[in-house]
């Protein structure tokens, strides 16, 4: 492997009023890898994503995305560098249509004046269609986003991220609140989109994790306590004790 890793986190820490939500964390994600992060509530999973995308500023350590240190960058610059992040509750623009939601996420016309003179060119429409098809919303393109089901909203947000074609995609509990059928489809979707990018997924549903994970990282009290294949991790006595056992 001559190339640098997609994401290298070293000695990362953040404390809120003395409480260490993430503590001396080391974490590496390869290219084209789908990594799942699991752990009990309060383990620091969402905080980890917040730190990577710049929503929360770290107090120590570094987050190298390829060759860039994300801890020194602004949120929108991190996104433009190629890091996309989906929030835990579906974060879509309910007042806009599905196609508008996707179009607004297209990575052109990102400056204020650029947006004013942004043209809905053929390549934009094309991309909206491709992504809509990918996230199974082609038939819903001109529906108002508020009218989508919960699962479809989750897909739409994933679609909005795909519009930007990020190299690193982070999904916070993408199947929460989904039906069994929708979980199935989401697992297939994630397997498809992780073909040419790295993906980090936070998830509680172990059955779902088994379907998608290349590797699993277990967090506990802001630290990595186990990492490896699903079988290896679920057999680890410490993981059983803090997470699986109860």
């Amino acid at each position, binding site marked *: 492997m001559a190339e640098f890793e997609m994401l290298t986190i070293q000695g990362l820490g953040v404390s809120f009023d003395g409480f260490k939500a993430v503590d001396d964390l080391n974490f590496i994600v390869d290219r084209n890898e789908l990594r799942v992060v699991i752990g009990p509530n309060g383990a620091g999973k969402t905080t980890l994503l917040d730190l990577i995308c710049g929503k929360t500023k770290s107090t120590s350590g570094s987050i190298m995305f390829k060759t860039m240190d994300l801890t020194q960058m602004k949120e929108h610059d991190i996104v433009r560098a190629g890091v996309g992040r989906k*929030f835990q509750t579906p974060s879509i*623009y309910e007042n806009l249509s599905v196609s508008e939601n996707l179009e607004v996420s297209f990575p052109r016309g990102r400056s204020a004046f650029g*947006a004013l003179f*942004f043209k809905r060119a053929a390549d934009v429409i094309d991309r909206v*269609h491709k992504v809509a098809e990918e996230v199974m919303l082609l038939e819903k393109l*001109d529906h108002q986003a508020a009218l989508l089901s919960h699962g479809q909203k989750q897909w739409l947000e994933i679609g909005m991220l795909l519009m930007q074609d990020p190299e690193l995609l982070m999904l916070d509990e993408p199947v929460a609140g989904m039906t069994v059928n929708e979980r199935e489809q989401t697992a297939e979707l994630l397997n498809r989109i992780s073909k040419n990018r790295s993906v980090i997924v936070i998830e509680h549903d172990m059955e779902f994790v088994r379907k998608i994970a290349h590797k699993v990282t277990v967090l506990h009290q802001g630290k990595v306590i186990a990492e490896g294949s699903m079988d290896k991790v679920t057999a680890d006595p410490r993981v059983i004790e803090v997470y699986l056992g109860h």
Partner: protein
Amino acid sequence: MSHLTKKLGKADLLGVVVLSAVILVLFPSVFGIFRLNLIGKYLTYAFVGVSLVLLWGNGGILSLGQGVFFGLGGYCMAMFLKLEASDPIATKIQTTPGIPDFMDWNQIVKLPLFWLPFKSLTFTIIAILVVPALFAFLIGVAMFKRRVGGVYFAIITQAVALILSVLIVGQQGLTGGINGITDLKTMHGWDIRSDSAKYILYYVNGALLIGCVVFTRWVLSTKFGMLLLALREKEDRVRFSGYDVANFKTLAFCMSAVMCAIGGAMFTLQVGFMSPSFVGITPSIEMVIYTAVGGRMSVVGAVFGTLLVNFAKTFFSEEYPDLWLFLMGATFIAVVLLFPDGLAGLYDRYGKPFVLRRAARAHSKPKATEPNVAVATALESGGKHG
């Protein structure tokens, strides 16, 4: 569905046509010059109403200090007109002839430096557009880059309005103080107090207002407009889609400031004076009420809302001089509680379905079946907000 959106776009365009007809044809043919001049004054407030549709209705940024920008535009224009009205011959009885009368009363013997460029009409017109934009830019950068928003932003804009009005009142020698800048007479020798001038100014004002309405509708139809709506709902989602949110808010704030300033300048021209009573907290909040009554999402609605509230205000204050402020407040509360989308919301619910039905019948049904292009046309018909 796409058929419907197309129709909706047409119905909204209809609003602009109706508005233009009302302002440019109906009012001048029904009212005499006195009433028309009064309506012209109300229409200058409508610039602020339109600016708030952009900023507050769509962007979710509530500014309670739009009077600041209205005042800046108005004062720029008033300074030019005052200098022209203060030529040495007209002011020869003063201790220092050639300076505005209020300066003379305040023992000022030389025109202050910042007044000097306002001898030029070209500079004045540029200043009307640039000064408020620059001021809004400074406030915008200072607030939005620090992520000050919502209620805090509203309070700070209110504080700015208070500070500016106090400053104007306090610096009587430089600004005319509480009385404002009065006794404005001519613009490049053209008597703005004559009936013919009032007619012309009314039409210029109306045309500029319609221009602002069309401009705002265009802005809202672009990706910028969609992002404003998106920002109002999910600011974090926009930020984490790669947009520098502060820049978008700042630009929207600057645009709204310039519109207010044009209104202010036209106010000065039509009414013949400018005073701090249009800068402070009360006028700024009143202007928000116009927009709320008209419908904060509708550009055309904001204009009608402004007219309605001002007609009501004139009526109430003539009929019930002691009660009118309470009646105004009650109107506002009633609108917010009963019709949160204002007049435009009422029209959307009851008027538009009727118009659409009529339009559908008139157009019969030549191309009712177009299932495959439905998606493409939906994508292309972006301009349906307004």
